[in-house]
């Protein structure tokens, strides 16, 4: 049993374990839920050097693993990161944590290179990034469409990396403007190659060399960098079914295409693009032609007129490998004026052997994933150039590993990468008890407007919506913690938990399963042996915060549900103590308030429908009743305790609601007398 407990108590919530850079999602969501946007951004920044970029375009694998998703819809995590980024700043730029001081050169300033630069600079190394393009950012700057990522957002993250002392030199290509030998001569002790995949894959079919056939990466780059627009009245055919193909199609529409048609080998449910990207493209009127393979591009008078396609029999063979087969006799003609190939990307490394860096038998950059080292001493590689295509956050993770590998090399040590250990899934009983709370929709720019311009489509949450969404988080693994030494095995926790989380193990030991706990806190207030501690912030420190709140002889104190902190305005003069759901209030807190001199004690909970927990307000009521009995038995006639239920927006007028509650209580007492 103890092994299980140890593992689960060190395990990461699935969102965090799945995130390639292991962002403390639970932590920053809890901060948002309690209105502490600054703390949320601090937590995001602890592990994320590109918070603004990730808040905007991250593929958010965390959401697929979110445990609320097992019982309800998952948290909208990327949109919440944006709430942190937009409302949590400005923060001071990140700072160095040590000063090792060795010189490191990084070639390429995409997400992998920038992350490595950030991490190595924080470790104290002197880092220079060489970027061949005119602006840093790599694929993010070149290929991500402006409607998904306004460029001023990229600048924010890059400025913070520069603030760490990282020198980013643009317009400097390795092999052309600078060589590895020169870098060595200039005192760089390690070089990291994060070259990305800058080459569009072509297609070997007739007509592909014709005018009007474009490659996606150069098209996207021209649109993004130079504001390239298509000639008027052109129908564009985009070949490909991945995310870049969708970006291409949606960019073409905005760049002036009359119509855009996508053609891909895959059936709709096989397309590699993310479902939400496909959906947004369809909303914009982009035509999807699935399960068709290009046969030839018909060119007449030097101009593209038609793409001839064959029906796809299957995309993958029996071994699951990409190996498309076609019905030769079933063809279709798709008319269009311009064809853009968006069928994949490749690296550009053929020149590397001239720099002394070896390629493997397949012509790719050779590197050892365990050490990130290439065949040349002191030269390392990371990101898509060695990993193949993937998300920005995956590349960032690889950049982070590379930074550790380079640092270890510079210290003549070996590096080992640790795999995170995720919390297990919710069991059936617990899952069935999770209370459904609507996921807040992320508002998007109106379709009619967005197809005409490159304005940011994703409008993001307001702070209010963000708070509402964040409180849906189940706080996985961050709830009750049994203090085994103090447990008297009375089984009260087993009996009060609405989710069936505490269980009796062999030899009569009680186990409050950390991996299953929903952090409602009811058990904490009921345990007769004070044998349950709480992991989530804002619970164990209630006595200290209460003391601080009542310092100076205040006679009123408000315990309120801190999930509504954000709405709490005009209450600055009150002594307040926020608790993340009043289910975590204990009679001892109420009596402590009285002992500290409070004459009026208020418990202010949100209206039940908004509470993500079961019966917590009911327990809060019982506790205030117990406290009232104690106060009465003690003969404290001047002390009153009040319970209020308020809608979140009513928190803005808290003082008025409190005086009303006092008046009502006095009135009902008079009547009882």
């Amino acid at each position, binding site marked *: 049993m103890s092994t299980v407990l140890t593992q689960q108590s060190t395990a990461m919530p699935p969102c965090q374990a799945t995130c390639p850079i292991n962002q403390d999602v639970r932590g920053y969501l809890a901060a948002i839920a309690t209105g502490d946007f600054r703390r949320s951004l601090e937590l995001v920044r602890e592990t994320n050097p590109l918070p603004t970029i990730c808040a905007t375009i991250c593929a958010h694998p965390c959401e697929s693993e979110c445990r609320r998703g097992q019982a309800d819809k998952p948290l909208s995590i990327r949109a919440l990161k944006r709430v942190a980024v937009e409302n949590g700043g400005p923060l001071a730029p990140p700072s160095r944590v040590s000063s090792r001081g060795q010189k490191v050169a990084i070639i390429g300033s995409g997400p992998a290179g920038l992350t490595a630069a950030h991490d190595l600079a924080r470790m104290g190394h002197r880092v220079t990034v060489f970027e061949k393009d005119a602006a840093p950012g790599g694929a993010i700057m070149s290929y991500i469409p402006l409607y998904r990522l306004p460029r001023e957002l990229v600048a924010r993250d890059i400025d913070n990396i520069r603030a760490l002392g990282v020198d980013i030199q643009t317009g400097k290509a390795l092999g052309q403007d600078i060589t590895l030998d020169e870098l060595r001569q200039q005192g760089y002790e390690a070089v990291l190659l994060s070259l990305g995949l800058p080459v569009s894959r072509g297609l070997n079919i007739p007509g592909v060399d014709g005018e009007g056939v474009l490659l996606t990466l150069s098209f996207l780059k021209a649109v993004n960098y130079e504001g390239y627009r298509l000639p008027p009245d052109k129908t564009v055919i985009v070949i490909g079914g991945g995310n870049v193909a969708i970006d291409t199609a949606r960019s073409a529409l905005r760049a002036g295409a009359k119509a855009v048609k996508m053609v891909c080998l895959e059936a709709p449910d096989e397309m590699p693009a993310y479902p939400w990207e496909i959906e947004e493209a369809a909303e914009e009127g982009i035509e999807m032609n699935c399960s068709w393979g290009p046969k030839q591009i018909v060119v007449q008078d030097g101009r593209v007129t038609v793409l001839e396609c064959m029906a796809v029999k299957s995309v993958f063979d029996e071994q699951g490998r990409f190996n498309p087969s076609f019905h030769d006799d079933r063809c279709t003609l798709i008319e269009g004026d311009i064809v853009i190939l968006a069928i994949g990307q490749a690296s550009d490394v053929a020149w590397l052997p001239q720099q002394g860096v070896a390629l493997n038998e397949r012509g790719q950059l050779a590197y050892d994933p365990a050490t990130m080292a290439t065949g040349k001493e002191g030269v390392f590689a990371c990101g898509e150039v060695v990993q193949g295509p993937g998300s920005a956050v995956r590349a960032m993770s690889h950049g982070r590993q590379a930074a550790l590998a380079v640092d270890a090399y510079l210290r003549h040590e070996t590096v080992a990468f640790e795999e995170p250990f995720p919390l297990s899934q919710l069991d059936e009983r617990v899952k069935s008890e999770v209370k459904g709370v609507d996921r807040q929709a992320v508002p998007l720019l109106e379709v009619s407007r967005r197809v005409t311009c490159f304005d940011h489509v994703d409008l993001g949450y307001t702070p209010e919506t963000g708070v509402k969404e964040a409180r849906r988080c189940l706080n996985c693994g961050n709830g009750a913690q049994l203090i085994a030494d103090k447990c*008297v095995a*009375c*089984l009260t926790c087993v009996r009060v938990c609405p989710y069936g989380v505490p269980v009796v193990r062999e030899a009569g030991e009680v186990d409050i399963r950390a991996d299953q706990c929903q952090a409602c806190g009811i058990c904490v207030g009921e345990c*007769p*042996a004070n044998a349950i501690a709480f992991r989530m912030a804002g619970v164990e420190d209630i006595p200290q915060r209460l003391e601080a709140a009542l310092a100076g002889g205040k006679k009123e104190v408000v315990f309120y549900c801190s999930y509504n902190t954000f709405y709490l305005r005009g209450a600055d003069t009150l002594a307040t103590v926020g608790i993340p759901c009043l289910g975590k209030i204990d009679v*001892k807190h109420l009596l402590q308030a009285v002992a500290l001199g409070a004459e009026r004690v208020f418990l202010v909970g949100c209206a039940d429908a908004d509470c993500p927990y079961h019966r917590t307000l009911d327990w809060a009521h019982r506790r205030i009743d117990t406290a009232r009995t104690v106060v009465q038995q003690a003969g*404290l006639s001047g002390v009153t305790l009040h319970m209020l239920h308020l809608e979140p927006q009513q928190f803005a007028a808290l003082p008025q609601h409190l005086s009303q509650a006092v008046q009502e209580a006095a009135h009902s007492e008079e009547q009882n007398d």
Partner: protein
Amino acid sequence: MIKAKHKSIASIGDMLAPYRRVLVLGCNTCTAVCLAGGEKEVSLLASTLRLRSTINGQKKEFLEFVVQRQCEPEFLEEAKGLIQGADAVLSLACGVGMNCMAENFPDKPLLPGNDTTFLGLSTELGLFTERCVACGDCLIHLTGGLCPLARCAKRLLNGPCGGSEEGRCEISKDVPCIWQMIYDRMKALGQLDRLSEIVPTREWSMNDAQGPRSFVREDLRVQVAGGG
């Protein structure tokens, strides 16, 4: 387990009148489990008494401590200093623990904070009910494992009486008739015929008729050196 509940604050207050420095001493076994003697109860009671003392201008001092079991002298050792430093001990143990306390600290006033009620169980959260009277002569093999002495208002050994109606006892509709339950259980066990045998009068000498009860396990007794 032994069940107990707090005395009223008023009666505790009366008992405390002569003492200024009082140790509220909890017990982490039976009374902790029945929510009357664990760390939380000790702290709640002490808080209440402090508040009461403050408004009465009494300036009393209430110390808090919880031992594993007050009915074992060895467990009282760790509280020895606190006990000796207090004017009186307000015990939240059961009567057994309180007696043990008093015997081990002969010059320390011992005040009961709890009323020890019965041997029973928590049938549901917040509801405690009696199951055993510790009669010293168990005969529940004859009654389907259910004790009529503890659970029949008339302590009948050959029930039910005429007051059993639809499975409820005549003293209250909230009280199930244990003899109905015994009947149902014997039926389920296929042993209904055994109920036609009359259970003879109990040997009450096993109970308290001969004064305080005790028993000896000779195999475990240690002879005092030089004795015998």
